[in-house]
């Protein structure tokens, strides 16, 4: 008697069954995709309705704006995408961040002679808030989003975290690598560092520390102070508060 399932015929049969399952799988996937698309469409529609209804709140309230942005991100919507369409035309959200971007550039250019192109996010926010009444409720979150947009445009803008939720905004496309930003983070509390403090706290070799410090001096980001009792200190204008407007 012939054994069942073995032989050319059985193999062909198996192959056919597999093919059928595959088709089925594709069918199912296509189905799911259609369903998900529909759901996404619904999400987006709801988001649009929500946005229209709360248009003013979004423009006026920083916390509201932040949460709205997070909702958008969750469904893959970018309200800051350039071009026409619902978001930019109806809401003017794009305008809000675009204008903010322009003001950020203005403040950075204006303060660059002093700080070499590096400014604390808090100081940036205060200066922008001081420029117009409409900018009173601009938050650090708003600024970071606008800076991200600027970065995408290839303008050399970037935000560097320095611990404790604080940021330094760099507006010149100079080469600031990890070593540089680490030293800036070290300096952030007091506004200055010395070669020995870098060596002691970061456990670097003298040469590595000196390289970083020389670079900062060259870029105009740091000034030297030779009257400190502990030896030469390097101070960063960007980290030195300037209460004047």
């Amino acid at each position, binding site marked *: 008697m012939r054994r069942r399932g073995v032989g050319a015929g059985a193999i062909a049969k198996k192959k056919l069954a597999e093919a059928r399952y595959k088709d089925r799988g594709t069918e199912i996937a296509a189905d799911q995709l259609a369903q998900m698309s529909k759901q996404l469409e619904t999400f987006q529609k709801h988001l649009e309705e929500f946005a229209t209804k709360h248009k003013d709140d979004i423009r006026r309230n920083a916390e509201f704006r932040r949460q709205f942005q997070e909702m958008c991100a969750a469904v893959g919507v970018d309200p800051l995408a350039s071009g026409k369409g619902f978001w930019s035309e109806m809401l003017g959200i794009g305008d809000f961040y675009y204008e903010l971007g322009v003001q950020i550039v203005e403040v950075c250019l204006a303060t660059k*002679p*002093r700080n070499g192109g590096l400014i604390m996010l808090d100081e940036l926010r205060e200066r922008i808030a001081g420029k117009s009444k409409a900018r009173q409720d601009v938050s650090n979150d708003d600024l970071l989003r606008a800076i991200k947009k600027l970065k995408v445009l290839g303008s050399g803008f970037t935000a560097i975290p320095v611990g404790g939720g604080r940021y330094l905004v760099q507006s010149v496309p100079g080469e600031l690598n990890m070593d540089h930003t680490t030293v800036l983070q070290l300096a952030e509390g007091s506004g*200055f560092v010395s070669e020995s403090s870098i060596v002691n706290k970061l456990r670097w070799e003298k040469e590595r520390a000196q390289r970083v410090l020389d670079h900062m*001096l*060259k870029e*105009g980001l740091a*000034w*030297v*102070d*030779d*009257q*400190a009792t502990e030896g030469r*200190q390097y*101070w960063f*204008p960007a980290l*030195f508060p*300037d*209460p*004047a407007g």
Partner: protein
Amino acid sequence: MAEFQWPWQYNFPPFFTIQPNKDTQAKQLEAWCLLVLSYCRHRRQYSLDVTDAQDSPLFHNQKIGRKLPLEAVYTVLEELRKKGNIEWTDPKKRNRCLIMWRTPEEWGKIIYQWVTSNGMNNTVCTTYELVNGDDTSNQEFHGMESWLLTRALQTLQIERKAELMGSEGVKFF
């Protein structure tokens, strides 16, 4: 006198160390020049003694314990001399200088503007009443030292806007 507004650099310790980076140094010297002139203008100070100045708040910030070294003080004053804002009384010794936070030409213009707006064209007045009289008490040139006043009036004389009459009088046209 209202309190003097120090610029941000004054409380920045490195401001009192001449910077090695040339661009930064240029910014630093410019800031020092501006500070010296505004400080003297605020105090209506027309001359400066280098030794006294080095210990004064201008070059010595006691609060942060920083003092501009003597050599750097001379660097700053030399910059100002090149710009025409100071003049050594003795260029060899360089221990005292005259300060012109405005050039004689600028002063001349300001004085002439006051003269015109007070309808004093074609009149004569003494140099004393010009800078010490009640009429000019609110003017920036009030209390100006005579050496500077003479230079200012001389620039007007060149423009035929005034004529010096001896050392004590002037006629305005």
